[in-house]
């Protein structure tokens, strides 16, 4: 394509040719134009120096809109492009591709956010918003004048991925990535795979056995030649970037040799709370959470093992944890760190105070321990009446609910609790036909395929429904001694015209929501962000729903937010597709936003080297020049993060971060500060 | 692909074929087109001088309001009619002056 070559040549030597800027103000389908008067912005910008064309369009990101820009580049010889539109995080890449298609270097384009930071926050002040748009665009123009063509840094990418979390999402993601010929290391913190799903007994809407499904996955993963599974392991250090993350994984000793394992398991006497049963029961410190778990070798609960020897065959065996450190290099990281069930506050609905109050996950474990056909006994009483309270730790309202330690309330819906508690109610009905069941809910959210049917079945199974309002929660109280039932639930029932209804019960079940797993350390290491709900945050729910803002890190499953198993599987597979697309080629491109030394100005003061905190990013080197020895700073782009610590300290202003230069900022400040005669004139 | 000896039909033949195949739909559409044209003319006539609302136009030409609105939506889209302010809760429509 001769046109493209010509344009590229032109762009390659911008100093020698005139700057021709195209300025594009997007209506964003009304999002911007409802507040900012885009035509006025275009008019004002059109009168500024170097601007060849200033246009508006309902949406420049559409195919037709992009075509306009391409056409301008090719036909009007535009060599700098400024676009005012939505946040750069959304469509900067879209337009980089557009200008590239038209033959222009992608870094000769600058994106100005006038939606999130203008029209959406100033809708009460259209005049102010319009003026602001003009100034921001003028600043963009000022920067654009100083842009230079750049090439991305191309690096080889490690064709391997790390999956953190060995629950259903992690396993699915690992398998899907491995299917694409990419090595996978799966790291699971606990000594066993399976995650939360293994703790369930039956899953909706198919009533399948979760552990059977899990085992199908685990078997495949364990047998796959490209998957390495590390249980009892945690990521303890991270460096690098997409394509080349360097990680340190610390793995606890399993503690048991294959031969001795069974004997040790049998001989062990020390006990600890069984967290597989949510602390309702106790188990040995040498343990298997459930028969058929993977790996099948028992593990040692290092947290609770007190170090005393265990007598086996007359020998005293002392178990020792010798953590092993693995160094890994991977191209991408999948976060499948899962969730924790919400732990109700002491006293919330009587939890922790009244022994008849348990959580739904606890109830599931309780039921798992009652043999089929036998009655349900709790605290020595046969259970006749059960109340299940929905939305515990979900849909909380600020000012109504007591905040948690971090001052926040969980104002999100946890998505699965409605169906899960109805599904459990059905299980109760099936096994204990005489039980009276009460569901206390705000809205029944059986949204999924086959879920409404579960609601219908629960109704047909004579489950009683009582509906409370978020602001007026039910109350749980211990019944006075001698009462027929140990506890009492009071609810203002909106279905019964707001009358208060009292339900005497033997068991109160709190359908608790989901909270993200405690992964603060990991979040800090990876520098990834979390949303207001504390779950990990995707870039954009529709544009890049499984990717995080840090390139090369993707999300799978409930680490991102509440999901059921089916949804977790989908999300995990979607994450795997992103990893496969990213690493399939074996190389990645990084933006060229790294420090660059102006050789003509640098005289080797070394201030930059002192200021730099990134290893191997900048160093002084000695050159021979015209017979003289000169010392100058030299940047190693792959190690430079582009923070600019070197820029501010250089007395000669000889170093800059490419595409983010100090001169550009000064020009932008000038543009923001100046009066805009052109704008004023255009108004006349 | 097709055999070499059968010549592709000429453009004229193809057009004739098209006309024959679609004779009935063309006839039906022509009836529709004539109705549309006369309705469009009477609407445009009404709002050439002063802008009017949908119910006003509908009452004047004796057509249901929703039909009139649909016509105006089309005329607006193709730049024949523009909105010209409001009359209470109803927008006013006016014919664009011909150049």
């Amino acid at each position, binding site marked *: 394509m001769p046109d493209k070559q010509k344009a590229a040549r032109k762009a390659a030597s911008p100093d020698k040719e005139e700057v021709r800027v195209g300025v594009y103000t997007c209506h964003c389908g009304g999002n911007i134009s409802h507040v900012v008067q885009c035509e006025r912005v275009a008019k004002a910008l059109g009168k500024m120096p170097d601007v060849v064309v200033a246009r508006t369009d309902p949406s420049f990101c559409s195919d037709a809109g992009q075509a306009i820009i391409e056409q301008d580049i090719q036909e009007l010889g535009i060599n700098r492009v400024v676009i005012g539109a939505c946040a750069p995080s959304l469509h900067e890449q879209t337009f980089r591709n557009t200008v590239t298609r038209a033959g222009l270097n992608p870094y000769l384009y600058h994106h100005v956010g006038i939606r999130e930071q203008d029209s959406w926050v100033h809708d009460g002040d259209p005049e102010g918003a319009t003026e602001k748009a003009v100034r921001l665009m003028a600043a963009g123009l000022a920067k654009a004048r100083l842009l230079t063509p750049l090439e991305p840094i191309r690096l080889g990418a490690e064709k391997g991925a790390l999956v953190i979390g060995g629950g259903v999402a992690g396993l699915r993601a690992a398998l899907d990535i491995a299917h694409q010929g990419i090595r996978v290391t799966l790291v699971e913190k606990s000594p066993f795979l399976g995650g939360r799903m293994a703790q369930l007994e039956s899953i909706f809407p198919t009533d399948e056995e979760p552990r059977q499904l899990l085992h199908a996955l685990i078997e495949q993963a364990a047998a796959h030649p490209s998957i390495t599974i590390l249980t009892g392991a945690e990521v303890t250090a991270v460096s690098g970037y997409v394509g080349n993350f360097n990680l340190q994984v610390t793995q606890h000793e399993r503690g048991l040799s294959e031969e001795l394992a069974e004997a040790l398991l049998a001989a062990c006497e020390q006990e600890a709370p069984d967290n597989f049963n949510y602390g309702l029961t106790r188990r040995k410190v040498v343990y298997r959470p459930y028969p058929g778990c993977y790996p099948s070798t028992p593990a040692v609960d290092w947290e609770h093992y007190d170090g005393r020897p265990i007598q086996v065959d007359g020998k005293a065996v002392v178990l020792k944890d010798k953590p092993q450190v693995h160094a890994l290099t991977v191209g991408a990281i999948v976060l499948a760190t899962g969730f924790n069930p919400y732990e109700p506050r002491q006293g919330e609905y009587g939890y922790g105070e009244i022994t008849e109050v348990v959580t739904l996950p606890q109830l599931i474990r309780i039921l798992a321990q009652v043999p089929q056909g036998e009655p349900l006994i709790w605290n020595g009483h046969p259970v006749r009446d059960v109340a299940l309270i929905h939305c515990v730790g979900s849909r909380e309202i600020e000012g109504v609910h007591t905040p948690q330690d971090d001052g926040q309330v969980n104002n999100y819906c946890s998505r699965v609790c409605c169906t899960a508690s109805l599904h459990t109610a059905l299980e109760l009905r099936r096994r204990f036909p005489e039980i009276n069941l009460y569901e206390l809910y705000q809205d*029944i959210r059986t949204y999924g395929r086959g879920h409404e049917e579960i*609601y*219908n079945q629960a*109704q*047909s199974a*004579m489950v*009683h*429904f*009582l*509906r409370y309002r978020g602001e007026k929660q039910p109350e749980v109280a211990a019944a006075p001694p001698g009462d027929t039932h140990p506890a009492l639930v009071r609810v203002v*029932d909106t*279905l*019964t*015209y707001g009358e208060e*209804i009292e339900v005497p019960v033997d068991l109160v079940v709190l359908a608790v929501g989901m909270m993200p797993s405690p992964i603060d350390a990991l979040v800090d290491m990876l520098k990834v962000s979390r949303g207001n709900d504390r779950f990990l945050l995707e870039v954009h729910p529709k544009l890049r729903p499984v990717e995080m803002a840090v390139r090369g890190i993707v999300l799978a499953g409930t680490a991102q937010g509440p999901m059921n198993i089916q949804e977790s599987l989908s999300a995990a597979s979607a994450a795997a597709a992103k990893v496969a697309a990213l690493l399939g080629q074996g190389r990645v491109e990084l933006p060229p936003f790294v420090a660059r030394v102006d050789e003509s100005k640098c005289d080797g003061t070394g201030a930059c080297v002192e200021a730099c905190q990134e290893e191997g990013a900048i160093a002084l080197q000695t050159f021979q020049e015209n017979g003289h020895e000169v010392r100058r700073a030299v940047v190693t782009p792959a190690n430079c993060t582009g923070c600019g610590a070197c820029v501010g300290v250089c007395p000669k202003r000889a170093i800059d971060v490419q595409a983010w230069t100090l001169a550009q900022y000064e020009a932008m400040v000038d543009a923001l500060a100046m009066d805009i005669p052109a704008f004023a004139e255009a108004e006349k | 692909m097709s055999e070499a000896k059968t010549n592709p039909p000429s453009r004229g033949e193809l057009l004739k074929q098209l006309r024959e195949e679609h004779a009935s739909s063309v006839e039906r559409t022509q009836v529709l087109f004539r109705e549309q044209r006369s309705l469009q003319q009477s609407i445009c006539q009404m709002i050439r001088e002063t802008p009017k609302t949908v119910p006003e136009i509908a009452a004047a030409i004796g057509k249901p309001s929703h039909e009139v609105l649909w016509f105006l939506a089309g005329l607006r889209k193709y730049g024949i009619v523009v909105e010209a302010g409001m009359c209470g809760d109803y927008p006013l429509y006016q014919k664009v002056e011909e150049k």
Partner: protein
Amino acid sequence: MHELKEYGAVGIEKCFNCGNCTAICPLASDEYPFPRSVIRRIQVGQEDRLEQQLDPWLCYYCGDCSATCPKGAEPGETMMAARRWLTGRYDWTGLARKFYTSLAWEIGSILLVALAVVVIILFFHGPLVTERVELNTFAPIEIVHLADWIMAGTLLFFIATNVFRMYWLTVLKDRSLKIPLSLYVKEAWHLLFNAATQARWSTCASDEQDPIEKRRKRNAWLTHILLVSGYGLMFFIIVFMLPWFQTDNIYPVHNPQRWLGYYATGVLLYGTVRALWGRAKKEFQMHRFSHPSDWIFPILLLSVTLTGILQHTFRYLGWPLPTYYTYVVHLAVTAPMLILEVPFGKWAHLYYRPLAIYFEKVKASARKHALSTTEAFAPAD
């Protein structure tokens, strides 16, 4: 809920309280937001609240609620069941409850009463005149009339006590209202008017938008009112004017005795056949879940009518024995119908319904009255 199911309710548990039934109902009001008001009380097991409700009686089962229910919860049928349940509640003897919840009890009692009638006649009948029809000789009119009066008295006793229970539960128990006696008198016309015209039912039809449905509903109402008129007339005639009616005189055709009798018989025949036909075909919403009690009453009534016609025909034909036999059968079905069905069975709605409307009106005007008096005494500000 289980109890109501014994009374024939279906699908109450399916109701998720969306309110569709109440909103579609042409008769429901803010004071009586049924069917849901009834369903909800049943769902949460508030028996005491339910037995104080007039709501079930205010429904005529047009079936719109059931037809449009998004969950197939059959609110109309629940209302029907609630009426049966209430009949059982009002009845202090406990018989009504037995009849509704046990088919064996109901049929057994009917057979028992029928048998009793046959036995009584067997022992006490007069001479059989076989040359000509002398019914009054076979069944001396004084005795029959006396039995008639005894029966009517018993009936009245049961009805009155049950009605009082109804009054106590639905009106007196509501302490929030003080009802001046004058209001009972003032609103009394509602009782008569509704008993006579079923005017309330006709609103079911008048609110209907769909013309076909409207016609169906209007026809249903018409059929019902014809049936009631025929029944009422017949009842009146045989209780109060039996000597005039049961006679061996053959009146000329233009005599009121003849044409009143024919009218009543005609509409009864038409009405019961239609009712049974509808139940068999299940063409209406209201006929899709027929409870045994819904069948038995029209069957009895039809049998009464048919045996009456037969007996009448035989008499005119001058066949003495068939006349006497059919007369016995006629009485044997009439008696249980009246004794059992009227105070304890389906036919109780004949008086509970107008009474409920009457109480509703009384309560409403009492409420209005209370409001106006408090307003009158409210200090002006």
